[in-house]
Each structure stands twice: as C-alpha cells, then as structure tokens.
C-alpha cells in the first residue's frame, strides 16, 4: 500500500517537474509573454474576503475578460488569516500568483524581500490618485502596491438598538472618558442583554490612532518601536475599569463568536474599526442601518485619523505576464464600472476616475460621507509598517485577549508584547 502510494507520488512529482521545465523554456521579452484573442494568456489572481466580495470580484473579472479578449483571469480566494499562510508557502516555492490583493501590513515582508514586482517598470495609470496616498504602496522609492481604495477608523453603532434603550445617538465628538461612559450606559441600561462594545484597546490600529493623537509615531524610520512601555500601559489602562463589566463584551463570548464579530452578531451596540466593514456588518447583523462617527480623542483638534489603503493590488516579481498583470491592476483600480461593482466593499475607491464613476447610495453613501466628514482631520497615510508587522498585529490582539481573560495583568501584557516585538525586530534586522 505504502509502496504504491509513494510510487504514485514519485510519478506525479516527476510529471509535474517535467511540465515546469517545459514551461521555463518558452518566451521571455521585457513585458513578459503576451497573448492574443485566439490564444489568450492566463494570469492567476487571488484575493481574501467573504462570498459577497467573491461574487463582486467574479463580475469584475468577467468584465475585464470581455474587454481584454487576449487575457484570461483565473481567480481564487480564501479568508484573511489563511490567505497569508498560503502566500508564505507559495513564495517559498517561488509560485506566487501573478496578481494579488494585498494588505499594507504585509507589504514590507514581501516587497523588501524581492517577491513583488516593481510596478514602476510597467504601465499603470496613477494620475487619478491622491498624491498623499501613493507612498503607502512604496518602499524605498519603488512602487510595489497600488491602493484600490481607502478606509478610515470609525465607531459603528446601530441607531435602532440605541433607540430601544432610550440612549441618544452620539455625534462623535467625545473624549475617551465620555466614550467609556457611553459604553457603560449601554451595558447598564440593557441589563446585560447588550454590551457597550468590544475592548477597543485590543485593536492595534486604534492604538496607532491614539498614538497619533498624542503625536507619537508607532515606528521610527529605522524600523524600531517609536513608543515606550509606559505608552502601551497607559493605553491598556484606558479600559481597565470596563473589563469584566457589561460595558465590554466578555472575551469568552468573543472567542465563541469568532470568526464573526460581536457587533455583527448583535451582541454589542458599537464597534471601533475600519469603515469599509460596513457591508459585512450589515450582512452579518441584519440591521436596517448602521451609522459611523469619529473615534474618541482627548484633543478635539487632533483625531489622529488617516486614510489607509484598505487594500492594494500587487504583482509577483516572478510573473511571466507583466503586461497582462499591469493591465489587470490598472483596470481594477481605475475602471468606473469596477467601482460600480464593488461600491464600498473594498473601501472608498482611491482613484478619482473610479470614485466619480460610482454612484453611492444607502449604506455605501454613509461610508463615503463619513470619509468626507473627517477630511479636515486627516493626516498623512502611514508608510508601510515594519517587516513582520502582520505578526505584531496578531500578537497585539492575542495579548490584549489574554488581558481580558485575566491571564495577564497590564504590566505582564506590556512586557509580553514588547518582548515579542523586540525579538521580531532583532530577527528581521
């Protein structure tokens, strides 16, 4: 039995490698292989997201293929967590897909290690982009990613739930103390049926917003931590009095509900996160409408907010179809019809051409209006974070969860995170 299995595997490997060798022998010009309508080239495209996004992406791909008969796009998707594990194995084997949806957190990991194509060497039109946004896709002067869209941090709430508790809707001009009072009020008025929110100090990007409110940079230009242990302790202390009370949903519930969020599961009245999660939350919760207001800040003039590329389009450094990949990326970020298909499910379209060509209604309009309303507070988008940032973001969430479980106290949690962060920075130095 084992003999046969090993034999079959050997044969399979042999056959596959012969195919790879054969593939290596063909075509090599500067723009890579090109196809024709009769003999189209096929590029692989991969993205993360739920079924809703998959449906929209398939529509966009079909549209692209009808406009570009010389290119076929082979699409493939997974959820966010599994996405990066897959990319890691593919990169190790030299087989990244030609075009990929990408996240800012992982841009350095792959860009700095020569896994991504320098998009400055191919033709992609970026005239319609805000000049302040493009640097988020650049590392050391080379462009590795083109933002598809932007998102910003916000507080979500469900007006119907607040109305049923007799609580006035917030206007978003609040300090952390006022925000905490609001969360507590929800918890006490609902008698525990509805929690105020999730522990917002467990979210790295909210911490980053808070740091910006205090004029502290998260990472220095040398790739070191820009904040101290005391800063992090202060941050985790913000909700110290709320943990274990109905103001904040218990970590047990959060774990049970995962991968759905407590807010999407109608367990909490608010959620502090990216504004492009709107479509997902509406679908999950079944709420009629959800509203967005700015995050709390103790400095009314500095909300620490910024527009982040909610996702980027990148190409593999090893793609054999540079020209086709560039045309597909250009299409996905600029085409107005693509904007019509995605609306705000990827975030608010970054390219003005695409944004102007899209009609936003209902909840999509809520997201666009929110980003317009905060425009006076917006500061520069962050540069791509340090190598290994994805790991740090995950461990931030995990350690904050340990804090909520009572496994660690604030000092222990701070030490644990700093140890992991310093170890990681040393590792990648």
């Amino acid at each position, binding site marked *: 039995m084992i003999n046969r299995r*090993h034999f079959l595997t050997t044969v399979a490997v042999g056959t596959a490698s012969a195919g790879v060798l054969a593939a290596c022998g063909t075509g090599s010009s500067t723009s890579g292989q090109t196809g024709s309508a009769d003999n189209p080239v096929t590029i692989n495209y991969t993205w993360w997201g739920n079924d809703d996004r998959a449906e929209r992406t398939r529509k966009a791909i079909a549209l692209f293929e009808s406009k570009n008969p010389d290119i076929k796009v082979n699409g493939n998707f997974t959820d966010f967590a599994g996405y990066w594990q897959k990319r890691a194995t593919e990169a190790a084997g030299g087989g990244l897909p030609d075009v990929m949806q990408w996240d800012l957190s992982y841009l350095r990991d792959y860009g700095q290690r020569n896994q991504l194509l320098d998009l400055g060497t191919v033709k992609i039109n970026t005239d319609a982009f805000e000049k302040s946004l493009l640097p988020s896709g650049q590392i050391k002067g080379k462009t590795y990613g083109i933002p598809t869209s932007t998102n910003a941090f916000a507080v979500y709430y469900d007006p119907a739930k607040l109305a049923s508790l007799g609580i006035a809707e917030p206007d978003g001009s609040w300090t952390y103390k006022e925000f905490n009072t609001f969360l507590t009020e929800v918890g006490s008025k609902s008698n525990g049926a509805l929690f105020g929110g999730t522990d917002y100090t467990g979210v790295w990007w909210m911490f980053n917003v808070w740091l910006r409110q205090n004029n502290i940079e998260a990472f220095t230009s040398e790739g070191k931590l820009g904040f101290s242990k005391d800063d992090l302790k202060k941050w985790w202390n913000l909700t110290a009095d709320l943990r274990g009370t109905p103001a904040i949903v218990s970590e047990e519930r959060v774990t049970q509900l995962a991968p759905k969020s407590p807010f999407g599961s109608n367990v909490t009245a608010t959620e502090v996160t990216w504004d492009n999660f709107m479509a997902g939350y509406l679908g999950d919760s079944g709420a009629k409408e959800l509203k967005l207001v700015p995050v709390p800040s103790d400095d009314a003039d500095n909300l620490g907010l910024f527009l982040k590329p909610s996702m980027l389009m990148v190409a593999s450094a090893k793609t054999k179809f540079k020209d086709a990949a560039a045309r597909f990326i250009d299409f996905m970020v600029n085409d107005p019809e693509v904007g019509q298909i995605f609306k705000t499910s990827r975030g608010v379209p970054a390219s003005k051409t695409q944004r102007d060509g899209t009609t936003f209604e209902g909840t999509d309009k809520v997201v666009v209006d929110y980003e317009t309303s905060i425009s006076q507070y917006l500061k520069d988008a962050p540069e791509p974070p340090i190598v290994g940032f994805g790991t740090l973001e995950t461990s931030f969430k995990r350690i904050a969860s340990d804090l909520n479980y009572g496994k660690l106290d604030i000092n222990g949690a701070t030490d644990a995170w700093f140890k992991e962060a310093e170890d990681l920075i040393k590792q990648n130095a």
Partner: protein
Amino acid sequence: MDARAGYTFLLPWLLGFIALTVGPMISSLYLSFTNYNLFEPPKWIGLDNYITLFQDERFLQSVGVTVGYVVFGTPLKLAAALAVAMLLNSKRRGQGFYRSAFYAPSLIGASVSIAIVWKAMFGDSGPVDQGLSFFGINLGGWVGNPTMTMPMFILLTVWQFGAPMVIFLAGLKQIPNELYEAASMDGAGPVRKFFNITWPMLSPVIFFNLLMETIHAFQIFASAFIISNGEGGPAGSTLFYTLYLYLRGFSDFRMGYASAMAWLLVIVVGIITLIFFKTSKSWVHYSGDSK
C-alpha cells in the same frame, strides 16, 4: 543478482522515501540551525533557535498544553477502548454492527468536519451546554472558556477509541478460553480474571496501543487548528505543540525556529519511545517467553 532485482522493485518506493521523507528531514535539520524566513537564503546561527526555545513563554505553554493532553487523553482513550473491546468480545447477535458503529468515529474523528461539529456542539447554547444546563450545570460554552477547552479536546480523542479498540479485540480473541475456564474452576471472579489473565495476556497489545496512541497524541493538529481558528486560543489553552510550530513557520515566517521545534519533538518522542521499551520488560509478556 536477486539483491539487484529486489532493489529494482523497491526503487519507486525508495526514490519516494529519499526524495519525500529523508531529503526534507535532512534539510529541516539543517534549517533548524539557521534563521530562515522562507524568502531569503537561510543564515547559519548555530544553536540559537534551540536556546531561544527555552526562553519562549509561548513555547513552554505549548509544551504544557500538549503534555497535559497526552497524559490525560491517551490513558482515558485506551481505557475506553479496552472496556468496549471486552464488552464486544462475546458471541451475541449484532456484534458486527456494534463493532462498526464504535469504530466509525476513529475513521472520521480527525477530519475537519468533525472539528467543526465539535466546535458547534460545545459552543454557547450548543447541545452540550443545553444538556448540562438541563441538569442545573451552567458552564456556558466550552469553546471560549480556557479551563474547559482541554476537557473538550480530551473528549474528542476519547470518542475516537475505535482504532485501538479493534486491535484490543483482536488481542482478546487470541487469549485461549481454557485459561478463563480453569480460573473459573478455581473460583476466580471477573476482577481477578482481568488482572491475572486478560491484562498479562493482552500486555503486548496494550503496549503497542499505548505507544502508538502516545506518539499520535503528540501530533494533534487539525482539530486544534479548526476549533481555535488557527490561533491556539482562548488564552493559549489550545496552543498545541504542532499548532505553535505551524504558526511560527507559516504565520511568523520563522522556518528555522519551526524546524528546531520539529526536531525537538522528534527527539522527545524518540526518548519517550525508548523509555517505554525499556520499562516494557517488567510488564509486557510475550507468548514466546513462556513457550
């Protein structure tokens, strides 16, 4: 001449063994002494990975979780397997059906779908929570409660007792009935018969099952990965060794570190196996010994 023919026929297997097992093992041994992030060539760092391991709290936690699982899960599973095997080792109608029914979970138990079912069963207001609440025990969902996740995983492994059970059954059939008859004549009760006949006669099979199940338990991965969404939570209570190894390798891109973990596991399991074999002389009786 015969040898050459033999090797020729072995060749397909041998090639696969070398290319797919020995080769990767040797390269992982090399990688365990390097800093390797999957993208750039590995950098030799000597024993650093092995030294860092013992200062890594998450690693020590994963060892604790795994050892707890092996120490409690394996004996319970074997006890269940032996008990059911003894119940099924009699000539009654429908035994074939019962054997299949008890064996089935071990075929599907390690699958992704069962892990998902398990997660749903032990979640908030899942059947387990509801059933216990009916008797006035309000534990809430087990999945989100760090103290209840381990019992949940142990139940999952105990439930898959079918594979060792079948082996126990085969072993029980080998015990000559005359021994029991003679013991009955001398007035031995069922407990006496179990400890003086069944246990020693079955000891080689018990030994085999104990060894296989222990090694197997160290490698738990899929169910932990699914139930904890690949994170090892809540509060690290399901951070099994192989799960942490996987996270280190494929989430944190520290393949050298992960390789060191893999080799440490191989060495430790090897040592445990050796200890089992050494101590087995005192309690395992092979039929050849007395014949």
